[in-house]
């Protein structure tokens, strides 16, 4: 049994069902991200775990104990908010020590723990400052220290990086991940930024319309999306229209080229299905091991440094493909004819 168990969780605001039959088991020390578009119910799930919302039905168990009927201040859960939510009337040290004081920890032990936490977040000298004297990134680190000081059983973070600028967002997410691994704390991280979720999570839950569409490791989510929504939401995707020739053998026709997929199809002969490819699975020109070759026309070239992102019209679709920059091969000119190759094994068959 998982350390944090969410079973058949349901939540409705009035007639609006916001979370629908949500199931998730999180192992101790695991870092799980809830990823999804705005309004899909991520915050609502998190708030139910924290105790700020009461589910209509379903169970939330932490370490085997059902917490649905516990009040938020009885659950021993650490929470970090998008808006930092530091207490403006308390210093950094008092903020971090707030939970300890409530727990009745002695003065000396409090000071030791606060100092330890401030070292952990890399701000050992800022204990006497007030929140308004800190930058946004510093405030969020203090908020993290405050949540962790009481040694919560679960740490919840609701888009903690959204209010920060891009550079700090990247460095702080790495820091959060390092601290999480160091302490081995079970963590749920809410974000709508797929790169963030992919880069720091053990597992990702992709949510859509209150439903957990797919749960899996970042590698799995990205390379083997179960649903059309997941495939489209996570990463960039090129889709092709194809006609099924022989479902049992996995043979399809893509713009007149016959392709054999590695797996059989559930569709009927003559059906039209959608096939998808990640930009990095497409290759400009012929290449060993990429047995399918299609003609195309270059329509756009973006030089991004180490990577060149090219757009081309291939088989009636506009596709994006990535090639690595090489000093000896300049990027192709716009309007040039080109061949695009890929391996049939990389094709993702998009289901419902």
């Amino acid at each position: 049994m998982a350390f944090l168990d969410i079973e058949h969780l349901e939540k409705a605001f009035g007639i609006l069902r916001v979370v629908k039959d949500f199931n998730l088991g999180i192992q101790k020390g695991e870092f799980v991200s809830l990823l999804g578009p705005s309004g899909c119910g991520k915050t609502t799930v998190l708030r139910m775990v924290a105790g700020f919302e009461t589910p209509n039905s379903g169970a939330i168990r932490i370490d085997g104990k059902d917490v649905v009927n516990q009040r938020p201040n009885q659950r021993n859960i650490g929470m970090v908010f998008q808006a930092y939510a530091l207490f403006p009337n308390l210093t950094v040290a008092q903020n971090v020590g707030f939970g300890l004081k409530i727990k009745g920890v002695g003065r000396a032990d409090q000071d030791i723990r606060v100092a330890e936490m401030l070292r952990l977040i890399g701000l050992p000298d800022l204990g006497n400052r007030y929140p308004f004297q800190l930058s946004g990134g510093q405030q969020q680190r203090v908020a993290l220290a405050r949540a962790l000081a009481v040694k919560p059983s679960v740490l919840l973070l609701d888009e903690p990086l959204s209010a920060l600028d891009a550079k700090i967002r990247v460095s702080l997410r790495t820091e959060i991940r390092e601290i999480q691994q160091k302490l081995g704390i079970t963590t749920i991280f809410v974000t709508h930024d797929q790169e963030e979720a992919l880069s720091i999570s053990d597992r990702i839950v992709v949510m859509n319309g209150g439903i957990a569409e797919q749960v899996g490791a970042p590698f799995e989510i990205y390379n083997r999306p179960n649903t059309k929504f997941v495939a489209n939401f996570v990463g960039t995707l090129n889709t092709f229209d194809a006609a099924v020739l022989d479902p049992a053998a996995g043979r399809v026709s893509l713009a007149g080229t016959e392709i054999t997929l590695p797996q059989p199809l559930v569709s009927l002969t003559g059906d039209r299905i959608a096939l998808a490819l990640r930009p990095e699975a497409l290759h400009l020109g012929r290449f060993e091991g990429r047995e399918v070759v299609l003609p195309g026309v270059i329509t756009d070239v973006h030089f991004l440094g180490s990577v060149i992102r090219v757009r081309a019209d291939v088989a009636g679709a506009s596709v994006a493909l990535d090639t690595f920059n090489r000093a000896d091969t300049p990027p192709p000119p716009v309007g040039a004819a080109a061949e695009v190759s890929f391996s049939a094994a990389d094709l993702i068959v998009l289901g419902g």
Partner: protein
Amino acid sequence: MTKLWSWGALLFGLVYFTLPLIGMTEFSLKMRRGEYSFDAYAKVLADPKFQETFSYSVLMALVTIAFGALLVVPTAFWVRLKMPWARPYVEFITLLPLVIPAIVIVFGYIRLYNTSSWLPLTGTAMGTNILLMFGYATLALPYMYRAVDTGLRTIDVATLTEAAQSLGAGWGTILARIILPNVLVAVLSGAFLTFAIVIGEFTMAALLNRPAFGPYMQLLGANRAYEPAALAVIAFGITWACMGLIQLITRFSKHTRAQR
């Protein structure tokens, strides 16, 4: 041209407000024939009745402030947190004392709590004091509520409450350690307004027959010439001192300086 007009308006305003003040102050200094002196002030301050009524009113003001803060801070907090839809209604209720004359309230009190009623508060001095305090708190309600509600607007009440809850805090701790300190400046400005109101209030204290400062001023005004003017200047000074203190405290609270 418009500039001339605005300067003219300002000048008129200044004259309108300061001339009576200057006249009153000047008059209060003329007790001794032919020269200015503080005789009237000395007389007033030495009057045991003055000391008695003034300290009574100060005490009543402090109790009223404490009661008002204890009533208003949790109420305004709760309304903001849990029943935002009720805000217009609560605001309307707190404004009622501005439209209902004090005399109506006090007659209502006397009807409800007289010696032959179910709760004979007016039967004892202490009971009447409590009743008077409730009356004062009602009069001060519009100012106190507005001040505190404005103070609450400057902080993110809902998120701070949730942050405190997730750290194990109960309602008492949240109110005492997070909410109250953050609206303290607002509470204090409400408190000074309450103080000014209570010190000058006449109707309630007179009808409930308590030895307060307002009725004393009235009594003095009806019987003497120079002392009431001196007393008025003193009362005016107290009010202005309260205003000054509000400013001072706003400036001294360290965590609100340069707040984002």
